[in-house]
């Protein structure tokens, strides 16, 4: 099996090897047998356990913490407050220079002097068991002075109460954008529609809570951290700098990760405290967040209030979008990515699929006394897609045009690329019209519309919702690095031929369950010429793999995969160099196929790779004096030609609404996605389906509900609803393939597409069902109560 470059050459008839095959991923076997190794499964001698005392108030001064009783409890090793831990772990400030004007105060591993949200850690108890640590934490006597609380984002923007006095106001970051001509466009428009949308703050609910086991070795001044994280190298840099340990002495190992979705790519104060405590105590220390503290301290996301206006001609041509976004992020911008990115993405992406030329946006990011928010799967996209597609549907309704036809009139033509969007984004090549056509065909759109109107006569209210979208994938250094963040946009892969003829792949992109290791095995096998069972993939260890960014922003396949492909091609060339010496043949006559060196033309077997390995490693004495074989190669890849490799897609939702109960039943969901070269269709489809369901959760169920005093009211899985199997529809996935020409592999990202588009599609479907009843909903999640309220029944 082999892959020839480039994979996307027009008219290519070459064998693509395993590229495009639904090969099951080898690493699933251990997980199926209960043999995974998540952080909490690891057992270490002298392991100590940490539990945190967390602030019961949303904003309060810590007057006194009395540890006397707690420290005396059986099994307790130590109790720490913020100032003590701060002696070992320096604070951080989450700002980036390319987000002009962004500000945030220094944040400590454990609160110093003041807690700014309910759930912020204010003390750490270390004991021989977690139970002992938790018991003792309850015996800490704390005296508090409650401070004024700001939870409403409009009030935060007004600044009646300023959370951080040094910052003068509650505005973390503001951005405005104006192409010019917007007021003119609205003045000459035949139709102007305007609506305000509210998006509920929600969170990732990874089934495995955040967890970290830090093991400081004082003899070496080294720190080994077993971490449930998406970005081991980023964390290595952070531990090194904030704990003052030489970078090369810090090793971050990321074994199995029980879901991440962006939740596990940030710096968490309690995790930093755990690492610092390992240094202080000179022994291994573990922290695993339980479910209740996960709700209080995992990043939240997506709390937005967005007013949007759209101007159109009566012929259906969209002229302009005008956006006003307000979002609240809690009391700190989250390190090191900042909490300005989500709102920034909303500004970048609103109106994204359409060909209007006038666009104006203003956006404010404000501090509040709730848990922090930051980047969560599809960052900003679910907001931008939902508000765009909702206002587009409103315009279509106003113009009495079919929503599909209205989109067709306005989507950027498939032959218009490369294309520069009014927000400044550059699109290499998208396929909106092909995607819309495919979607309408697959969902049998006219028949579905006919069914819908037939059933309405029987008092059955069904709705069809469409959501077209663009999606950021494969980000270049323009995303974070340019702003000063020590976050790598490049990734690397090392491939080694083993003496037995097997290939070991070590790559800096990590596995979180999405199948990274599986596709790397497919790419490596195809590039080198071996069968996929001969490839072993290792990821998630800064001591072993090349340096790289890890898993975020739908970049694993496109960036990590390209590095594996380049390294695989180079290894193949080196193997052939050696084989040519062994066989005394010209290298050009040889190729590798199915684990053997073969004659390139006749495919006649010349030498098994096990023999190449044997000679290369054990009998190099038989080779010419001037030849040294190189059977380990490393290659890196950074996308640089475009800021992002945009993908496009479109989703549709079909729902039935019960006007008496406000319940929404999801009947079917469709997704057409163009993610460039598809390496494994099975894995791609399951990424999309999982993402769609996560988006459905946002649309129908999920919200972190806070009281006016900043108390989280539903921070457990009984009260915070997540999608379960019973309510979810079957999801139909279809693909277009427009490979990116920036890379040899041509892969774009797909991990966030489902989550980006689903909320908008479901929202439009519900409103389509409500339309004949004269009602409309605009605040996610669309709970039965909100729907009944829109119907004026409650």
């Amino acid at each position, binding site marked *: 099996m082999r892959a020839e470059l480039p994979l996307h050459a027009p008219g290519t008839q070459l064998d693509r090897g395993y590229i495009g095959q639904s090969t099951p991923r080898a690493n699933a076997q251990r997980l199926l047998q209960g043999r995974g190794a998540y952080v909490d499964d690891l057992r270490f001698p002298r392991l100590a356990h940490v539990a945190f005392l967390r602030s019961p108030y949303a904003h309060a001064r810590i007057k006194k913490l009395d540890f006397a009783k707690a420290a005396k409890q059986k099994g307790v090793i130590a109790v720490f407050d913020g100032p003590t831990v701060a002696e070992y772990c320096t604070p951080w400030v989450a700002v980036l220079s390319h987000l002009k004007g962004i500000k945030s105060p220094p944040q400590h591993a454990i609160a110093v002097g003041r807690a700014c949200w309910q759930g912020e850690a204010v003390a750490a108890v270390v004991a021989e068991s977690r139970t002992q640590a938790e018991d003792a934490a309850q015996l800490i006597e704390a005296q508090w002075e409650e401070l004024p609380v700001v939870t409403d984002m409009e009030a935060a923007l007004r600044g009646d109460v300023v959370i951080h006095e040094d910052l003068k106001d509650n505005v973390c970051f503001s951005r405005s954008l104006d192409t010019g001509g917007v007021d003119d466009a609205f003045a000459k428009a035949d139709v102007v529609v305007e609506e305000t949308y509210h998006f509920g703050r929600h969170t990732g609910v990874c089934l495995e809570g955040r967890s970290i086991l830090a093991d400081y070795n004082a003899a070496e001044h080294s720190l080994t951290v077993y971490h449930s994280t998406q970005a081991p190298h980023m964390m290595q840099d952070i531990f090194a700098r904030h704990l003052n340990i030489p970078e090369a002495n810090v090793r971050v190992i990321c074994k199995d990760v029980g879901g991440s979705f962006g939740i596990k790519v940030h710096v968490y104060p309690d995790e930093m405290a755990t690492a610092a405590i390992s240094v202080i105590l000179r022994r291994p220390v573990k922290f695993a967040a339980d479910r209740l503290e996960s709700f209080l301290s995992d990043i939240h996301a997506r709390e937005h209030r967005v007013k949007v206006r759209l101007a159109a001609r009566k012929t259906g041509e969209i002229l302009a979008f005008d956006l006003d976004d307000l979002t609240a992020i809690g009391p700190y911008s989250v390190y090191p990515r900042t909490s300005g990115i989500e709102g920034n993405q909303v500004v970048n992406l609103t109106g994204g699929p359409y060909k209007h030329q006038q666009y104006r946006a203003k956006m404010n990011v404000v501090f509040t006394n709730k848990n922090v928010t930051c980047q969560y799967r599809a960052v900003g996209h679910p907001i931008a897609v939902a508000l765009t597609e909702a206002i587009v549907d409103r315009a279509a309704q106003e113009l009495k045009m079919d929503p599909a036809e209205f989109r067709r009139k306005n989507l950027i033509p498939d032959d218009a690329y490369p294309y520069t969007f009014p927000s400044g984004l550059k699109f290499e090549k998208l396929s909106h019209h092909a995607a819309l056509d495919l979607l309408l065909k697959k969902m049998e759109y006219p028949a579905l519309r006919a069914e819908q109107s037939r059933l309405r006569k029987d008092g059955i209210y069904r709705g069809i919702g469409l959501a077209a979208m663009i999606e950021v994938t494969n980000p270049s250094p323009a995303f974070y690095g340019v702003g000063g963040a020590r976050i790598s946009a490049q990734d690397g892969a090392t491939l080694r031929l083993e003496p037995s003829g097997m290939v070991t792949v070590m790559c800096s992109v990590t596995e979180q369950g999405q199948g990274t290791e599986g596709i790397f095995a497919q790419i490596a096998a195809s590039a080198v010429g071996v069968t996929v069972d001969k490839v072993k993939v290792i990821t998630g260890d800064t001591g072993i793999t090349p340096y790289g960014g890890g898993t975020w922003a739908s970049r694993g396949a496109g960036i990590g995969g390209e590095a594996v492909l380049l390294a695989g091609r180079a290894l193949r060339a080196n193997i052939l160099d050696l084989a040519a010496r062994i066989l005394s043949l010209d290298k050009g006559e040889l190729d590798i196929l199915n684990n053997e060196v073969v004659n390139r033309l006749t495919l006649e077997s010349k030498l098994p790779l096990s023999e190449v390995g044997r000679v290369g490693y054990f009998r190099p004495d038989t080779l010419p004096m001037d030849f040294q074989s190189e059977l380990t190669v490393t290659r890196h890849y950074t996308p640089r030609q475009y800021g992002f490799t945009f993908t496009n897609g479109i989703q549709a939702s079909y729902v039935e609404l019960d006007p008496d109960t406000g319940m929404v039943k999801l009947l079917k969901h469709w997704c057409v996605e163009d993610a460039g070269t598809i390496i494994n269709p099975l894995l791609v489809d399951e990424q999309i389906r999982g993402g769609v369901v996560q988006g459905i959760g946002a649309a129908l169920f999920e919200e972190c509900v806070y009281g006016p005093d900043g108390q989280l009211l539903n921070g457990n*899985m009984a009260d915070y609803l997540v999608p379960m199997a*019973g309510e979810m529809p079957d999801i139909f996935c279809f693909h277009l393939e427009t490979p990116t020409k920036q890379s040899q592999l041509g892969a774009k990202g797909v991990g966030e597409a489902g989550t980006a588009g689903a909320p908008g599609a479901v929202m439009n479907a519900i409103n389509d069902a409500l339309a004949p009843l004269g009602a409309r909903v605009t605040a996610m999640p669309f709970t039965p109560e909100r729907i009944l309220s829109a119907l004026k029944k409650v």
Partner: protein
Amino acid sequence: MERDLEITLTVNGSEVTRRVAARVHLVDFLREELGLTGSHVGCEHGVCGACTVRVDGDIVRGCLMLAVQANGRKVETIEGLTDSRELAALQKAFYERNALQCGFCTPGMLMAAQDLVRKGGKASREEIRAHISGNYCRCTGYQAIVDAIEKVMNER
């Protein structure tokens, strides 16, 4: 406050005797005392199903049962049902269908699915969805899991 009790139970076919605190949950006992880390702790309040194990033939939430309540009873976990090959058909179907991603829910999901499979007979997709509706999976969106269980139930 802390009372230790001696319990004897059969875990995956082997008899074990331990002194445990009365408040220790069955799943914590399995993981911490016996090192059977295949059963996972997801919510500790009976919602997510990650800790699903079998006690005397019925599936239970390992976080809602105390270890002392398992005294004298027969407990089976993912490790035991893997070694006995009882789960082999489901594991193969999950593998081929990619009915798992991060794998954290998977042992509990397999225990719940096998509970339906061993009842015999066929099941509709709706029945399968209903049966696993107490097991939370954030990764897959459930469809692949339903497909895999359906394949095992309806192709035998």
